[in-house]
């Protein structure tokens, strides 16, 4: 595997059973600008009378609904700008997806 071209660091996190776990990883370029994100999907969640099967945080940490919901096992989204460029089961796979999208795009 080539060394990742972006610098990835922990984004927002959530407390989970006494531990904090990253909900997203932010990929920055050499100048430190955030270029890509990989985000953990959450859900299903209940809000009032509706059930959202899949949700994630956008860059402003707003909960956004994903439509159509991704297939089972695709728990991480790779995002560049506001755009979802791919999905993966595991965060490192999503990171590779994001970088590959940058390379080809």
């Amino acid at each position, binding site marked *: *595997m080539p*060394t*990742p071209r972006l*610098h*990835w*660091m*922990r984004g927002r*996190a959530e407390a989970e059973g006494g531990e*904090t*776990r*990253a909900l997203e*990883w932010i990929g920055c370029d050499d100048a430190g600008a955030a270029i890509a994100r990989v985000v953990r999907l959450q859900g299903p969640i209940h809000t009032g009378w509706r059930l959202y099967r899949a949700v994630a945080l956008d860059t402003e940490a707003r909960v956004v609904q994903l439509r159509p919901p991704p297939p089972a096992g695709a728990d991480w989204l790779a995002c560049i700008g506001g755009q979802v460029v791919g999905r993966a089961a*595991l*965060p*490192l*796979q999503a990171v590779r997806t994001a970088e590959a999208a940058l390379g080809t795009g």
Partner: protein
Amino acid sequence: MSETPLDKIRNIGITAHIDAGKTTTTERILYYTGVSHRIGEVHDGNTTTDYMEQERERGITITSAAVTCEWKGHRINIIDTPGHIDFNIEVNRSLRVLDGAVFIIEGVAGVQPQSETNWRLADRYNVPRLIFINKLDRTGADFYRAFDTLKEKLDIVALPLQLPIGVEDQFSGVVDLVEMKAIIWEGGELGAKYHDAPIPDDLLEKAREYRQLLLDTALSVDDAAMEEYFEAGDVATATLKRCIKAATISGAFRPVLCGTAFKNKGVQPLLDAVLDYLPSPIDVPGIKIAAEEGEDEHAERRRIKADPKAPFAGLAFKIINDKYGTLTFVRVYAGTLRSGDMVQNTTRGHRERIGRMFQMHADKRAEIKEVSAGDIAAFVGLKDTMTGDTLAAAEDPVVLERMAFPVPVIDISVEPRTKESVEKMTIGLQKLAGEDPSLRLRTDQESGQTILSGMGELHLEIIIDRLKREYGVEANIGAPQVAYRETISRAVTETYTHKKQTGGSGQYAEVKIVFEPLERNGGVVFENKVVGGSVPREYIPAVEKGIRVQADTGVLAGFPTVDFKYTLIDGKYHDVDSSALAFEIAAKACFREGMKKAGPIILEPIMDVEVTTPQDHVGDVVGDLNRRRGMIQNQESSGSTIIVRAHVPLKEMFGYISDLRSMTKGRASFTMQFHHYDPVPRNIADEIMTKSA
């Protein structure tokens, strides 16, 4: 023996489908750990092989309840986990006392129905597991296909830590994906010699691909490890191992290793993995104390942490009688115990003095002077401690397990082949019943036959086999029968006078007894309400004895009578002619007469049956259970498998395993355990009574 720190102890079980190689793997483990233990001690090249041969002959280690071995400065206690559902309580208890398990599947067939059953049992206790794909030397073995059955049949995230080098008879070693190297076994010396090597060229590509999968999956459980990876493009071996261990304990994924125990390849790295990834006693949350009567089994309760300085607490999980006497195997959860100490048996409420203590090794039993939290030892000479009992310090008398009342649901009649061995057989069976609370012994009043009751056919077969091997008694056995019970449905008052005039002194006794039905599981309750000495005190025990003996042979079909209360309210006696015997006879007859008028009924054991079947066969399975008088309780799906739970009379479950197999082409499996007793329907009661007449 020097004291082993807690983090260097592993209490593990090895579970497998029958024939998958549990025994062979255990033997190899004991052999290799024995070798490493002896290095520097014995220099003669042949000694180790001889020792292996002897072991084979005696086979003691494998039949021991727990055997201790040393590997790279750690102590591994291997706890025997019986693999059959007939031993439900024992399986459950052994799963409780271990902290982790090696789950063996076969390289040819992969996961088989019984492996599924064992897997789910281990799931219930959240046992951390490593998977070992064995028999890769066999023709037709395929690591990748066997691996796929893990996902298909068990619906788990399995993750290879190794890849095989070569297939079938060319299988020569494994690629270690954690350290990215090959491990190659040399011929000879039963596989004790092996060395590291570079990964073969033709496997390099595949190894990289699987290494990436390993990193992707393992690092995702630990953000700090992810950062290390982003920083350096890889992680240190220690980091990767830390992630694998955490995920093994949480069950986030299940690490998979491979080899061939029989051809002596792959066992040593399996032992390394036990040390690296399975938890020590301090890596697990500690045993929960038992629920109070009526409290929810799953409720949060105090846990006993593994701390050698805390008050002592331990669980007796197995009792074995061998030629040295009675050995009680105890898993110590907290505190330290020295021989000579006093402890409380909190299950039964008496004190026990700890005599000699041992740890069982492959080649010897090692006497120890003390045992501490996290470890396992066998105690000699406990007076009155049964399996499942808690031993605890008086200052913190915790109870770790509620007393279970296993209900033996299958009867067989037993008869010694020779008249001379009647007494030997009785003694042997009484000893065996003392070790095993799920075994019961009684004598049928009418036929005089000895009836043995147990949890299942296999359970009873094993007992008969042990009777032969350990007590030298060969016995003929009858066909297995459902252990029916009898009870009554209404109250009745019965008076019986026993009067006999034979030449000299006669016999005289009269009793007046009220018989009343009790709720299910009410047992047999006696009350004495005699006033004014109409039945003298000294004869009361004779009345009790008469009823107890007679109740073992019920009036309808000769099955034990349960769930009733009898109250002695009045009677008559004669100064000269009354005797204990006369009152016993009167009580027996009063029972027989009274029962007939009290609306006697036959009860049958109803089993809690859990069938795991692929979706496509659910219809057949449910239809068939209905035909067996089953009441479906619920259906749950997990992935593409459906779990059907039903209450089914045991009578209808004879031969179920083969019917289920043919109905589902061998893809479904089931477990069952006793749930409750219910009255049998009229037509079946008639059938049972005709048979017994």
